[in-house]
């Protein structure tokens, strides 16, 4: 790539952390980041408003019961949520807000298309798992707030950790699930490459197409 086209992002390989569970289906982008926060002209600073109407009461005080507000959620880099996560609007503010809060991975039984594309372009990995795996992750977290999960992108695996329990006699954690990901998106994430650089490097093809069609 030439100097003008290359733009490196933080490479994504493996994330291992505690996780937050939001067992709700069809979480739409209006919940992830309500429209009134879309008047910004910057990508930064949206983390403070992520899930705003669920995280805060109308008077602005935090809703202590909301999973992201609990003390044991702080520092978590993985969110586990219900099916059809990210439905609704195409606002890229949704992944910007999730990343701004500190997340690097969302695990769900399914994702809305545009959200999935937007997430990967911002170093947020959408991991699609079978409903049974999702249920297992929810149950494990409900049983132990210190449960951890390891998402290994090169190996495309999700491993349930043992949390803080004394498990020296237990078997080592085994892989809970393998997940599928578009091979090109995976390469881009692992090497921190952005698609625009790829497109710009193929300008000759664009010129050829335009000469023929327009």
């Amino acid at each position, binding site marked *: 790539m030439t100097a*003008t*086209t290359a*733009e490196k992002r933080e490479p994504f390989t493996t994330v291992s952390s505690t996780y937050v569970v939001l*067992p*709700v*289906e*069809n979480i*739409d982008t*209006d*919940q992830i980041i*309500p*429209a*009134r926060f*879309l*008047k*910004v*002209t*910057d*990508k930064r600073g949206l983390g403070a408003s992520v899930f705003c*109407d669920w995280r805060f009461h*109308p008077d602005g005080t935090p809703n202590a019961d909301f999973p992201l507000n609990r003390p044991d959620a702080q520092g978590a880099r993985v969110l586990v949520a*219900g*099916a*059809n996560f990210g*439905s*609704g*609007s*195409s*606002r*890229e503010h949704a*992944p910007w807000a999730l990343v701004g809060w500190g997340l690097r991975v969302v695990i769900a039984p*399914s994702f*809305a*298309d*545009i959200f999935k*594309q*937007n997430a990967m*372009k*911002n170093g947020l990995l959408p991991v699609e798992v079978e409903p049974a795996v999702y249920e297992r992750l929810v149950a494990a977290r409900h049983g132990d707030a210190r449960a951890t999960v390891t998402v290994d992108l090169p190996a495309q695996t999700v491993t349930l950790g043992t949390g803080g329990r004394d498990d020296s006699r237990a078997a080592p954690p085994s892989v809970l699930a393998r997940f599928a990901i*578009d*091979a*090109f998106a995976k390469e881009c994430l692992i090497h921190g490459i*952005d*698609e*625009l650089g*790829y*497109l*710009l490097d*193929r*300008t000759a*093809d*664009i010129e050829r*197409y*335009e000469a023929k*069609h327009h």
Partner: protein
Amino acid sequence: MTTPKTLFEKVWSEHIVREEPGVPAMIYIDLQLIHEVTSPQAFDGLRARGLRVRRPDRTFATMDHSTPTLPKNLAVVDPQAEAQLAKLTANCREFGVELFDLTTAEQGIVHVIGPELGLTQPGMTVVCGDSHTSTHGAFGALAFGIGTSEVEHALATQCLLQRKPKTLEIRVDGKLPRGVGAKDIILAVIAKIGTGGATGHVIEYRGSAIEALDMEERMTICNMSIEAGARAGMIAPDEKTFVWLEGRRFAPKGDEWTAAVARWSALRTDDGATFDASVSLDASTLAPMITYGTNPGMGIAVTDRVPDPSSGATPSDQATIAKALAYMDLEAGAPIAGRRVDVVFIGSCTNSRMGDLRAAANVMRGRKVAAGVRVLVVPGSKAIKHQAEAEGLDQVFRAAGAEWREAGCSMCIAMNGDQLSPGQYAVSTSNRNFEGRQGRGGRTFLASPLTAAASAITGKVTDPRTLSFDTSNARNDIGVQS
């Protein structure tokens, strides 16, 4: 003999710039539409890399989401929105993009003005940083919403990297009963297949009921494809499409027009072409639809009762319904008709065109809005506003006690000053009933312009077929010219 192709496959293969194994296809974008909310970070990205807009002649901008719609007081809702609009103006100037701002006669909701100006044409690829870009598929274009990163990609290269979506045929045959329209068809489709039912697919709507729709109604259908999770929705162009487009500002002229129509006429699914999935619906059995819950798939006939959570197919469906009923404060088993309504919103890229306004006016003509109900009628574009006023529709709305506003997204999105108060119920002709979509704590019933207007008159959710009204002028085969 070539293999039979679907409409989508024809448009897709025409736009492949490059295909490599293991990499998504590089697709050429014929038209990109821009608005103030999802573009500033994309222009910043161009500046950071020292890039230009590759094809300013294929890029057009408008202001719609955060613009005020109050006629006399055009002050923007807050300094942040003002800064966002100013940024769009500055970006368009710097990068040479034509902008239809608030001072121009062309301004309006991005998905209303694209077709109105003849920018949207059959066989094109159209993108916009907005999920309802699917609207433009009504013309046989492949049109889809993208995020801000892809807005930047398309600005810089006029291309996007896309995996080929699958195809879903939605067949709607039969004759629509009186009082039932395009909005009811699409709400019934989404209720049937669910909000994730078309994920990963491009829908082609076909069948006699679709062919019978005018262009505005087809836009209403394609507009809500995204609410079923679809990548795009398309309808094959036909004579109605060509009649609607001819003479519009950016439509081809003279010999170019003749050549274009010949080309466009081939844009239909070949006999024997196959879809990855197929769903069908009988239009003659439909009733006016309304949503009771917090996603667009929660639609029922206006004559139905609010479902019980136990009717959900799976435990998580049951939890979803229970959560929705709690937010909406509705009782399972109660009839939806007769529910109190505080606000009625007639507008949005789904239902703010001439046919929608005429239909609403037909119901409201000579009647009064129920006491205590606030009614907003918001045309989709300045051109529509102008035409509606020429037909005296504004007078009908005003005489009934409704507010007649300037063009914009208005109460569809609650980021421009028009919004619900916590706990209020609205019958809305828009496309999303998500929690807080029309204002924090607000509760939305999605419905057609007829149902919305009837509900405005009675102050309750109302089946429009229970009122008498004229329907002779509602169809709009030509649409407004600007």
